[in-house]
């Protein structure tokens, strides 16, 4: 019995090492993928795909979801559904904003305060300029 338990722990440890290697490779791939020439949408999709794969590995093996009981998944399914609703809210709000340009202008222009708005330091100034560009881009 003890020997079987020991073998089981050894098997677990082997899985942990493999997952660790996969997570390290995933991190390198995430950084490498951000440097390739692709559209912003493609960058988002690639980065999210790798992040979801990495998170799944952590959840499945480190959090032992792969061997958990059914009862837990009823909690997790509800969480996933509500998380999906949360993520879809900006899309709905964006459609609302399209009909109300003043709301969009308020969102983009209002936070431009502090040093960046007044020229500030080199870094702050650059961000301020970028944010102003964004305000123009978003406004139209």
């Amino acid at each position, binding site marked *: 019995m003890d020997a079987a338990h020991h073998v089981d722990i050894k098997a677990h440890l082997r899985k942990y090492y493999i997952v660790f290697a996969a997570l390290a490779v995933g*991190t390198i791939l995430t950084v490498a993928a951000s440097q390739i020439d692709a559209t912003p949408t493609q960058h988002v999709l690639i980065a999210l795909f790798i992040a979801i794969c990495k998170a799944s590995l952590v*959840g499945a093996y480190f959090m032992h979801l792969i061997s958990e009981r059914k009862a837990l998944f009823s909690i997790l399914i509800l969480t996933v559904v509500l998380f999906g609703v949360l993520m879809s809210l*900006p899309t709905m709000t964006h459609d609302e904003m399209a009909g109300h340009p003043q709301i969009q202008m308020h969102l983009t222009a209002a*936070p431009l305060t502090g040093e960046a708005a007044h020229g500030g*330091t080199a870094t702050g100034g650059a961000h301020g300029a*970028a944010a102003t560009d964004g305000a123009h881009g978003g406004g139209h």
Partner: protein
Amino acid sequence: MSHELLPYTVKPHPITAMYSGKLGTWLFLASEVMLFGALFSTYILLRVANPVAFSHANTHLNITVGAINTFVLIISSVTMVMAWAALHEKNLGKCRMLLGVTLACALFFLVVKLVFEYKVKWDHGTFPSTNPFFAIYFTMTGLHALHIIGGIVVIGYFLGPGSKLYATNPEYYANRIECTGLYWHFVDIVWIFLFPVLYLL
């Protein structure tokens, strides 16, 4: 006595098939998903409204520092789960050593975050009020850092005074380490998404 006050701390509950601590931890993590979900939702809203500002602003973040911290958190996740496995090998010494490595990784993450990221930005006059990108950047990474601090407190407790429980009830101690691990892995998962979203996209 304590077993009567708080039932199913070691043995699984007949309905949920989990001990109480694990069920409670998962419910807590579900609420945490909603908390970070609201912030990710806010990020999307701000990014859609400020596409150019966001694509320019994140070029001022240090990808190398972010990647190093990602590796450090991954290492800490592995050592955390190995600490739990060590308890199943009935090896408290190895467990404490691995918890110590996890704690060191957490402290390293915080120091790197504070010295090589926040301080550099503050020295350059970049604050949450600078623009929408840095507002959400400081909010999300700041909240994540608070979770790291929370993890340090809990891991530190089980590494120190909390480890006395092992002598009287090793299974209960192992369960507590497992719950701490669940929380710590969640903190790692949040960073797995924060890193590409804030630093790379």
